[in-house]
């Protein structure tokens, strides 16, 4: 018996070796230096393509194709582990419907055309009405991609209509950081998960959405450490399973719960007096200075007894939270993502959680930090640091500030005054403009707004009649409305640099060629800009009359990067990154030169040169870790607007959401993700293992609600809001269970677009829409 196995085994091995020998003859050169090559298989580092956690992966390529993905043990984020999406990231390149040719819509149909024809059409159409052109970008843009788009539109076209999908994702976090600390992005880091004793999640299902971080923390329990997990949420999820406390709150009352904790800290005298006096100031909601007594007066509306009445969280649980933060010994990390950001008071709730940590002195110490998680691989690196937002400029600058504009114009060598002082349209406004005709053309890169915008019927109205250019890798809902479709290179088909949630900048090299005629997004923009320059567009000339987006090679020689052959044989990323780097020092977001990131498996900014070494900063604002904190300062919020190194504690009240369930529309609707799919599913739905495990959206209903409405598991349910309706199969006691009166629908499924139903009300400060709360009614179908 064994002999037979052995023979079969040898035979099969021989067959496969022969096959390998044949195919390896045709192997293409892999552009970058390989870290490891065995049997024609090469492994190189890259950051994962998906979420903002920023895991390091090792990509296995063979014969010019990606054949395997493993976790990068050298990467401090994930230490070798990945989630199911990360392992299967290689498959996203090989869906059979990859876009491989530029297309122009002619007589209603997309027709394959040459790159020259597409670029010429775009350049000429945009030039006709340059002021009503807009760019809608992405937190999945690499840093050089976002930087190029920014320079093109703000520097070259004197137009600020550029905003990223991160507006739908991180804007509340940004405004929260800026209003409290005077500067964007977290001060803590993932290392705090290794040294804290308590994690509290605010509306965040991290077991599915940031599973690597969840495992990083929970594995400490597996090895015998005593750690606590508190899950504050509106539905029971996989993150609730291991939680010590589950606090189920009524949507929007997180505002009141946070204030209740602040009330207890001050009323009980358990706040960190020394820290608060040295490092903070109090502000009224309107921005007036408050004394601590006046602040306490404001908080008196938020006693545990008062808040328990409408939050759904019991007095005991609220007191437990108050005592937890009041306990000087506890090291607490607060985590949140879309639950707090996609909120009509997203900025306030971000401020409020900082209030708690500032009052408790639980910030700037190992294991104690409020930590805002990101959803996209470079929402931080590109949208927030490069600043691809309607009001921003690179390095934390803003268009309204004349000095900032001049600094950027000098680096870009623009004609003085080229950058407009008037902020452009933010995302929702941009799509309203597209509907109304205030925006006549739009270039969409690396995102799928016809799927992910809220209230689609309203926000995508008339989009087909405008000139919409879409750069993407697969057909999507957005290519359906496009006038021009450009096929893009994806992930390791191009060079890239991205920045994750913990200020970690990571670089990778191109490993395989893009399919067909697919080309880099940076190249696409350079080519269109250069065509406009050739056609005599004044804005694209720099001070010396040369092409504004000129790129040089390593020796400082100008290269014709708008030609694909030239672009693909040079590392244009390196030039763009090093140029952008000059703009990162103003707000102490210092980056190292490109080559340092080639060596490192990611580095957290500010990165400064100390002797011959480039040193990263694990925790910002902390003496001994952050080089910009002077000796003897301890913790210093050195970017405070008033220049007094103090963070602001804001008196933000509870405010009811704009739409609440009533008699007619009697359920809350919450939307979100599942572990298998990422955002609109453009990539993950091309992966067999992922799509097979979760092939369709569904609606989660509480078992008692389902019983009352006579809905059984798997039954079709019609969900309707004032804006639209869709039909979904019901999930009862599935992987998650919502609170009574709330339903949950994942948004990945383009066949069942929940965004026909969602509301587009947004936070007035951050302009980020609330995808987590609106009123719907259900109807069981037979």
């Amino acid at each position, binding site marked *: 018996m064994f002999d037979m196995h052995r023979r079969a085994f040898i035979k099969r091995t021989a067959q496969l070796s022969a096959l390998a020998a044949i195919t390896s003859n045709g192997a293409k050169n892999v552009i970058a230096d390989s870290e490891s090559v065995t049997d024609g298989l090469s492994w190189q580092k890259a950051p994962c393509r998906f979420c903002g956690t920023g895991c390091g992966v090792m990509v296995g390529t063979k014969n010019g194709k990606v054949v395997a993905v493993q976790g990068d043990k050298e990467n401090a984020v994930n230490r070798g582990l990945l989630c199911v999406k990360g392992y299967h990231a290689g498959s996203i390149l090989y869906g059979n419907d990859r876009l491989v040719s530029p297309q122009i819509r002619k007589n209603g149909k997309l027709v394959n055309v040459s790159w020259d024809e597409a670029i010429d059409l775009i350049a000429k159409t945009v030039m006709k009405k340059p002021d009503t052109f807009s760019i809608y970008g992405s937190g999945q843009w690499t840093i050089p991609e976002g930087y190029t788009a920014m320079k093109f539109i703000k520097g070259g076209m004197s137009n600020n209509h550029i905003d990223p999908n991160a507006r739908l994702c991180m804007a509340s976090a940004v405004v929260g950081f800026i209003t409290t600390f005077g500067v964007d992005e977290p001060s803590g880091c993932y290392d705090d998960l290794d040294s804290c004793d308590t994690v509290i999640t605010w509306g965040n299902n991290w077991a599915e959405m940031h599973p690597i971080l969840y495992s990083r923390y929970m594995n400490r329990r597996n090895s015998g450490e005593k750690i606590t997990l508190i899950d504050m949420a509106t539905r029971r999820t996989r993150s609730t399973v291991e939680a010590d406390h589950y606090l189920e709150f009524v949507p929007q009352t997180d505002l009141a719960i946070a204030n209740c904790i602040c009330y207890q800290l001050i009323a009980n005298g358990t706040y960190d007096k020394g820290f608060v006096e040295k490092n903070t100031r109090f502000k009224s909601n309107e921005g007036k200075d408050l004394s601590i007594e006046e602040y306490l007066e404001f908080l008196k509306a938020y006693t545990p007894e008062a808040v328990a009445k409408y939050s759904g969280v019991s007095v005991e649980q609220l007191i437990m939270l108050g005592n937890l933060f009041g306990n000087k010994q506890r090291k607490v990390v607060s985590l949140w993502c879309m639950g707090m950001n996609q909120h009509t008071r997203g900025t306030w709730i971000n401020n409020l959680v900082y209030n708690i940590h500032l009052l408790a002195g639980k910030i700037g110490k190992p294991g104690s930090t409020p930590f805002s998680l990101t959803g996209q691989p470079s929402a931080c690196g590109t949208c927030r640091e490069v600043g691809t937002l309607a009001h921003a400029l690179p390095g934390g600058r803003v268009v309204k500030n004349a000095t900032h504009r001049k600094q950027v114009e000098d680096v870009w060598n623009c004609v003085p005054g080229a950058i407009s002082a008037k902020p452009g349209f933010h995302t929702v406004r941009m799509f309203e403009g597209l509907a109304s005709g205030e925006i006549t053309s739009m270039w969409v890169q690396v995102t799928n707004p016809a799927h992910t915008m809220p209230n689609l019927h309203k926000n995508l109205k008339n989009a087909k009649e405008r000139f919409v250019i879409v750069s993407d890798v697969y057909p999507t809902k957005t290519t359906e409305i496009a006038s021009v479709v450009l096929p893009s290179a994806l992930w390791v088909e191009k060079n890239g640099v991205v920045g994750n949630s913990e200020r970690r900048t990571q670089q990778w090299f191109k490993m395989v060629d893009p399919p067909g005629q697919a080309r880099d997004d940076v190249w696409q923009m350079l080519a269109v800009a250069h065509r406009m320059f050739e056609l005599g567009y004044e804005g694209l000339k720099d001070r010396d009359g040369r092409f504004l987006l000129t790129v040089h090679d390593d020796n400082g020689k100008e290269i014709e990067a708008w030609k694909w052959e030239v672009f693909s044989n040079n590392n244009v990323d390196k030039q763009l990154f090093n140029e952008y780097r000059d703009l990162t020092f103003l707000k102490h977001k210092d980056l190292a030169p490109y080559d340092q990131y080639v060596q490192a498996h990611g580095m957290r900014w500010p990165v400064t040169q100390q002797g011959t070494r480039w040193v990263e900063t694990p925790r910002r604002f902390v003496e001994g870790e952050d080089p910009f904190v002077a000796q003897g300062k301890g913790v210093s919020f050195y970017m405070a607007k008033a220049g007094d190194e103090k963070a602001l504690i804001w008196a933000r009240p509870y405010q009811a959401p704009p739409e609440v369930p009533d008699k007619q529309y009697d359920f809350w609707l919450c939307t979100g993700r599942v572990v298998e799919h990422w955002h609109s599913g453009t990539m993950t739905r*091309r*992966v067999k293992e992922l799509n097979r495990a979760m092939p369709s959206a569904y609606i989660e209903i509480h078992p008692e609600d389902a019983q009352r409405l006579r809905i059984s598991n798997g039954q079709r349910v019609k969900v309707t809001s004032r804006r639209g309706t869709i039909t979904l199969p019901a999930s009862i006691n599935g992987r998650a269970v919502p609170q009574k009166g709330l339903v949950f629908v994942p948004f990945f499924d383009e066949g069942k677009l929940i965004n026909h139903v969602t509301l587009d009300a947004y936070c007035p400060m951050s302009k980020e829409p609330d995808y987590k709360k609106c009123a719907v009614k259900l109807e069981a179908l037979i």
Partner: protein
Amino acid sequence: MKHLYIVFGVVIFAFTTIYFSGKHTVVLASDHEVVVANDKNARHSHIETGHNFFIDGLHTRQSRRAFFSAPPVIPHTIGKTDKECLSCHQEKRIFRGVESTLTPHPEFKNCMQCHVKGVAPDYIPSANYGVNSSFIGLDKQEKVSRAHHLAPPVIPHRLFLHKQCSSCHSKRHDHESGISGPHNKRKNCMQCHVLADIKLDF
């Protein structure tokens, strides 16, 4: 009466399993892509036998992974929590005469972070959810090599997440025998078997 119910239950269960195990087949497609057909309701369908279970075992293994060393999909019905996974995959259990596969990385307990089901959840109506992909995953066979035909083969994969050799390399049940060794009782594997390439230990 009570006994009758139990007997009835056992009979129904036996019929169901026989029915579905018959329907569960592994199909090798021409482009090296292996698909598991008709296993939507199969409970523990990984317990199947074939004429040449050596090759069948490899095919079954391959059918559950996107590429060599990818996390396998879950080939049977599951509960809601990871604790339920670990009740069989952390300590040896015998189910229908077959030992459970022990996890090669007991230090990780958030199982469903990496392992997803090979079929859709029960509340999603069955339909053809096929994915058109030309992805061809790495095949493990190419790197199995040895100095001479009597030398111990080198280890062709990384050790991270794969430290418990016996999880896969045992004669635990037939279909996995494609990668089982001739001396399963020996435990100190790395006395004779070394990594094919130190660079594999990235």
